[in-house]
């Protein structure tokens, strides 16, 4: 059978297999073992299905592929329009890759209300994938909001400490911010008569939209606020540490690994794609915010006494790089930004899993509670070291490629941005290595730590794939970049034209 015949339905399959699995779970009896096994099975099936995407992707083409476009609702004109380019393809694969690992890592740490947990996890997976592949603005908003509920419930029901506070804060922050995006989407629909991303983009670019030039700043900001809260960009970040610290491990992994990327993906796809001039005009202050995020996130991470909070703040710093790259409007910057999205998903996801493994044993994330862990847990400390170095950005591991590209892009745009951004790389080495030293080396300060069991096979199986991917991404980035590059090039076309126009205008004068 020719696998290409799958192309029209593959996106629907990849998106909705987890949801179908969740519905099946609803009727399964409450036997925890079977439920875990079934959830793992579904998430693996979905992962292998999603491998079809890169395997049959036409890498030299820039447009959307695997498209499916069916009328969903006649009036208003809403389509079930899915499709992906090189950027969203890898984000989808990242999602399907991380979910089975999340199932594995939650095997024993979730022992209460197991069924509900995996139902929520699978629903969340569907919603996240759909956000990346939706090409109808309405469908996009629909799934964007749909990610909120399962995530908030995961935090609120399975988290620890001030979980309710964290869940509600997470929900309200994102929900309130995305209301502005909805307003902008509705405005566009009222003027264009369609929710279709490509149609709107063409209409905007050909200047057919009445009143667009006067409204575009507000529209840009409407989208921007929704995405900036999700990323989170500097002044909007306060929900993140709370959500991360209280969330269960799987929740943190998906939150850092995928949900934050929805924000940067949105900036790239919608803010850059629909409002080139506004993006240009607003880039300076956004880049300043990104730089503040990089440095502030790193500095705050350094003083955290709590491991998970430290990793959470490091996410703010890393995501600052992504925004910096996106708003540099250079090929290298955007390539690198996309690459960091993937790399950060793998390595921070890995760090959260490892922190969770330690939490299962000691029920604390306080760094001061540990010390000398390397002696009782040699395998664990090796894994931790590896993933941490990937996160720091050691050459030949995944973090390095993206940061290098972003910094070179930022440097092309304005050298000072590149220089300031580069300090972030140093900071990240400082806080991560320092934490590593305090947790793993030195004398064992607490007696309980001396007898901690090392990682078991299941835990190794959960972390090992992340390590392998981190290594391959660092050694052979072209495997990923050759699909990302054409998509980024297409995204940058209006900016190239813009630059050319500016150049001719200056020559004309």
């Amino acid at each position, binding site marked *: 059978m020719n696998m290409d015949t799958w192309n029209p339905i593959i996106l629907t399959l990849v998106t909705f297999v987890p949801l179908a699995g969740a519905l099946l779970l609803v009727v399964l009896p409450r036997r925890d073992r079977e439920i875990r096994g079934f959830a793992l099975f579904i998430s693996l099936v979905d992962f292998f299905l999603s491998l079809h995407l890169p395997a049959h992707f036409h890498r030299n083409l820039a447009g959307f592929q695997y498209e499916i476009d069916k009328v*969903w*609702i*006649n*009036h*208003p004109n809403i389509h079930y329009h899915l499709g992906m380019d090189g950027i969203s393809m890898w984000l989808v694969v990242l999602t399907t890759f991380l979910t089975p690992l999340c199932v594995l890592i939650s095997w024993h740490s979730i022992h209460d209300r197991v069924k*509900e947990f995996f139902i929520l996890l699978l629903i969340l997976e569907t919603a996240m994938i759909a956000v990346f592949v939706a090409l109808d603005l309405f469908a996009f*908003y*629909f*799934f964007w*909001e*749909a990610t*909120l*509920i399962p995530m908030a*419930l995961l935090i*609120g*029901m399975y988290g620890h400490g001030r*979980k*309710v506070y964290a*869940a*509600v804060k997470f*929900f*309200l922050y994102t*929900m*309130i911010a995305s*209301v*502005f995006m*909805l*307003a902008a989407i*509705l*405005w566009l*629909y*009222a003027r264009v008569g369609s929710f279709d991303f490509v149609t709107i983009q063409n209409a905007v670019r050909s200047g057919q939209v009445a009143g667009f030039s006067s409204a575009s700043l507000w529209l840009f900001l409407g989208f921007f606020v929704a995405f900036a809260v999700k990323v989170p960009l500097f002044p909007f970040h306060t929900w993140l540490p709370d959500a991360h610290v209280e969330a269960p491990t799987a929740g943190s992994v998906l939150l850092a690994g995928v949900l934050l990327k929805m924000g940067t993906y949105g900036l790239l796809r919608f803010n850059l794609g629909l409002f080139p001039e506004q993006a240009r005009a607003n880039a300076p202050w956004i880049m300043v915010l990104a730089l503040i995020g990089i440095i502030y996130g790193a500095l705050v991470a350094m003083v955290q006494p709590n491991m998970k909070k430290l990793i959470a703040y490091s996410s703010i710093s890393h995501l600052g790089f992504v925004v910096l790259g996106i708003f540099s409007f250079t090929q290298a910057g955007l390539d690198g930004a996309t690459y960091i999205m993937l790399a950060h998903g793998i390595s921070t996801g890995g760090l959260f899993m490892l922190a969770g493994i330690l939490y299962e044993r000691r029920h604390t994330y306080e760094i001061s509670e540990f010390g000398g862990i390397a002696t009782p847990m040699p395998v664990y400390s090796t894994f931790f070291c590896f993933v941490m170095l990937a996160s720091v950005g050691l050459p030949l591991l995944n973090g390095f490629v993206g940061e290098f590209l972003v910094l070179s892009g930022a440097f092309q745009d304005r050298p000072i941005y590149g220089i300031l951004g580069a300090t972030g790389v140093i900071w990240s080495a400082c806080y991560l290595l320092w934490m590593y030293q305090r947790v793993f080396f030195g004398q064992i300060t607490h007696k309980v730590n001396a007898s901690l069991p090392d990682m078991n096979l299941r835990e190794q199986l959960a972390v090992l794939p992340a390590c392998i991917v981190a290594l391959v991404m660092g050694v052979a980035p072209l495997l990923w970049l050759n699909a990302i590059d054409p998509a980024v090039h297409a995204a940058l076309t209006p900016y190239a034209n813009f630059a050319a126009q500016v150049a001719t205008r200056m020559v004309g004068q």
Partner: protein
Amino acid sequence: MIPQYPDYIRILPELVLSIFGMVIMLLDPLLDDRRSRSLSGALALIGSFAAFAATLIQAQSPGYAFANMVRVDSFSTFFHILIIAITAIVILSSYEYLNVQEIRGGEYYGLMLFGAVGMCLMTSAMELVLIFIALEISSISTYVLAGFRRRAAISAESSVKYFLLGSFATAFFLYGVALMFGATGSTTIDVIGNVLRSGNIPVLAYMGVAFMFVGLGFKVAAAPFHIWTPDVYEGAPSPVVAFMSTAPKAAVFAVLLRVMFEANAPGRIWLIWVTAALSMTLGNIGALVQNNVKRLLAYSSIAHAGYLLVAFAALPETAIPAAMFYTAAYAVTNIGAFAVVSHFGGTGERRVTMDDYSGLAERSPLLAATLTLFLLSLIGIPMTAGFFAKFYVFSAAIKANLVGLTIIGFINSAIAAYYYLRIIVVMYMRKPREESPVAPIPFGLGLALALSLFATLYLGILPGRVLDYASRSTADLLFQNRPATPTALSDAPTLQPVQGISDIR
């Protein structure tokens, strides 16, 4: 003119409901307590099914009846189906409630059907005086129903409060009708519409609209006429609240649509703008501090009336379908929510505070999940009816360039998320207060919940068909294509609206 056969067809659902209502009332003295509940419940249910069938028959022969006092068109059919469906679901969910609270069934079900008669008639009446009569029929039934928890003082208080303020409000409506008659020389909506469209609008017409709006605004609990709502909702039996927060509201919104758009009421936009903004804001702010779930839902219903009114300020072509969809979406959601509240409340409605709901997810996962879904629909989360309802309303508003009102609406929906979420949070993330499992869900209530759940999800995933239907009835309402030429059934010259009883001038 002597009424003909087609005339009766065009009020067939009302006739069917009245007959069943009277039969129930007559049978009731012959039955003991238990039978009174089961038999009259079954009769009422059959009655609403029969009325449903009658609506479908009636829909085949649209047109005027009784000297242009009644008009059957797709608009009236939409609301007939909605009101009858609400009645049926409430009857289903009442059965257990009446048993638990030990209330006799005969008068209860009878009044409910009579109420439905009035509401149905409101949606097809074209004559303001007839609308007034229908409004009274529906209101008087609901006044009495609100007092049905005879042993609870709070219920009696609720009934009296509702009655006093309600009759005051209907008086306003009647005064508005009188002023309108003075201004246009007619009490028929078509004629008023023609006069007001012709260009010169007398000042009296503005006043007439304003007074009528006060009366109708009271019935839909729009601010600033909303003061009665929390007390009445708190005291009245929960299934009755489910009924009176949806069915009469749907009917009154239908009347408002006719008055505002078909009669082309002057000064509409500012009147609506202020009321909508006030209702949304006061409703949501009031709900923020509530600890009683019934009161919270009362304030939420004020806020929802506000969202719905936003549509009334928009352009007719988009506003009417949006408002109709919102009415339906809100009705199915709210009925479901109150069905859960009434089941969980138990004897004497003891468990209605936020604390009582804590840990409900552990005690009854099904009930908690169902209520969560209804609350999400009230917030307006995708995949639920509430989302598309808000969506259509706000896109209609944006199309009409009502940016300010839309922003107020958006901010309000964000505020509203907080208090609905509070219930969800309490149910899922707190420890239960008492360990005992919740009473099992009986069949009737289960069916009512399943129906409203299905409708909430159906409207949230595939809203297309309902919206298309609503858009078609918009055309009916806007004089674009009046009901087709007289069918075989009708022999009266029904097409041209003649002056009717307004000829007396």
